[in-house]
């Protein structure tokens, strides 16, 4: 079952996941893909900010933070699934 990164952050699920797709074709989704959130990339939830949002993810060796409004656009599944 695919979930979004926002669900993953809500569940504080720190397992290694793989990006299935980034929904939308607008400039925003393109930018998310350009910074590395694109299909096939491994991604891992690290922590939420003290106030609950945004959340920090590990992506291609770097720590990236996304608000949940963006995290909702990124669908993920278990790595290797």
């Amino acid at each position, binding site marked *: 079952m695919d979930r979004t990164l926002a669900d993953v952050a809500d569940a504080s699920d720190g397992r290694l996941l793989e990006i299935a797709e980034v929904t939308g074709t607008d400039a925003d989704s393109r*930018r998310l893909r350009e910074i*590395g959130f694109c299909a*096939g990339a491994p991604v891992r939830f690290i*922590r939420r900010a*003290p106030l609950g949002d945004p959340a*920090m993810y590990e992506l291609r060796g*770097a*720590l990236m933070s996304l*608000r949940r409004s963006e995290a909702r656009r990124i669908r993920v599944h278990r790595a290797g699934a």
Partner: protein
Amino acid sequence: MTTLVRLRPTTPPRRPGRIAILGAPNSGKTTLFNALTGHRAKAGNYPGVTVDRREGDLQRRFGADGVRLVDLPGVYSLEPQSEDETVAVRVLEGGFGEAPPDGVVGVVDATTIERGLPLLAEAAGLGLPVCVALTMIDELKARHGEIDPKELQDRLGVPVVGVVGNRGLGIDDLGALVSSPWDWTPGPGLLHGAEAKTPEDRFGWAREVLGACRRQAPEPNRWTRRLDRFLLHPAIGSAVFLAFVAFFFQAIFTWATPAMDFLSGLMDGLADQILATLPDTAFTRLLADGVIRGVGAVIVFLPQIVLLFTVILFLEACGYMARAAFVVDRVMGWVGLEGRCFIALLSSYACAVPGIMATRTIPSPRDRLTTILVAPFATCSARLPVYILLIAAFIPADPVLGPFTWQGLTLTGLYFLGTGAALLSAAVFKRGLLRGATLPFYLELPPYRLPRPSDIALGVWDRAKLFLRRAGTIILAASVVLWFLLNLPRRPADPQLSVTENQRAVLEGSYAASAGRLLEPVFAPMDFDWRINVGLVASQAAREVMVATLAQIYAHEGEDGEGLGVLLAGSGEGGAPPLLSRASALALLVYFAFAMQCMSTLAVIRRETGGWRWPVFTFAYMNGLAWLSAWLTFVLASAAGA
């Protein structure tokens, strides 16, 4: 399907060559630029420090003459969304009336190579010769990672050198390489990547390239993880942060005061010496009172400025600033802005001018304008002398809790007041005037890095020089003009009166006094007299001029060694009455917290927004708010019996 990649002729070389430094934010570009050119452009451990292109000549010792380097703002791709990204792309495509660069140094962080390569492919797609600087080799090794630059070079088909920019390792090799971009013939590896059309294709290509290299990916940065667990903890993290801030403002009073008293004694001694040795002419008095005492009153705050910037630069260099943006992003979301706006606001605590420049990283024009309009509320370093002088004079130094006194807490409160005003006004603007959707927010969080003391020291030195230069130019000029306005028209000395009394008479009848009295209807509700009014008008040139004004007015009051603060508070037995009641002093502090009193800020707002409309608007609404809040403070404080 293959596209033909345009390759610009690489021979014969046209000199001088121009080489652009391209890379993701925080990959180490500015550090390399500085190492190659010998410049000292500001680098910092958070994205968005460089927002404009900056040029410098490659140092001769690398073997070539007349090679120019262009440092660019960090970009993730060549499809720009924000102003700083546009600058980078325009340089590469040949904008600003210049030809495209003769080559590109692609800066790639060795700990996140996969993220750095796609950009190189895009640059190669523009037909530009590319070489690669692999930075942060030291961090890669520390995290047990490994890569052979030679092997990457073979896979990409372009020269690759490993460097540790901030320690100068590998810089000689890079310098030699940069001296001859005409030899960088792109091989098939990179050209293959250049054909990729989508981000997916480019990242896929990057993984292929890396997959073909024998390499060891670095382990997670354990120190960063541990520190984050602590500093980003909801309870502990906030407590640590608040304690740190309060402690810092307390230190400004307790630690910096001895150094300040020393400087203050020096200035007074110098002024007295001049009055005692030179013949008593108007020029002597201008020199002693207008120049030495006026400008000196500002210079004595150098220790506090140094302390402030040591802390700010440390926080920037260690990687905490980006975390602060991460923590506060939620609050920024409530007011309708994003974390990057917060980074721009943070820079404004040093000075609103670079802060407003830093808004170039904000992609949404409305968010950017909102941030520009509220950035001057951030408590810039020019407010510090005024705050410290008034607090030391009118707020008791009684301890409140542990090492904290009312003085330190008042200063802390003023910083929060500025921040609150910025956030609230932003919320108002975003709900009304500048309503609009928020763009996606992404922020890369760099690892924590232990700053090198020499880097911080150099940075602080630069800021101290800037402060002294301000004192020697704009504040000096304002101080001299004020001296004339405070001492003209001349009047014959009355032999019945003492020197001090005569001086008071001159001041009371001066042009400045008349001007100050003219303003009394405006500021009478807060009980400001003409002396404060003159200071308020004069500080329109620069906030510190307030201090210089008061120093001149009080030049001949009081005993030897009595500081300006003591005089303002009134010396009790038979001496001058206090300049202000405590309620008025609080009102004045609040006025300074909110008022727009800085020509350079107005000028930069005009430049960044392209017209007079927004600077005029900022001036009007900030000063209006300042007046209202000062009045409210006065009323409340008077009611409370202050």
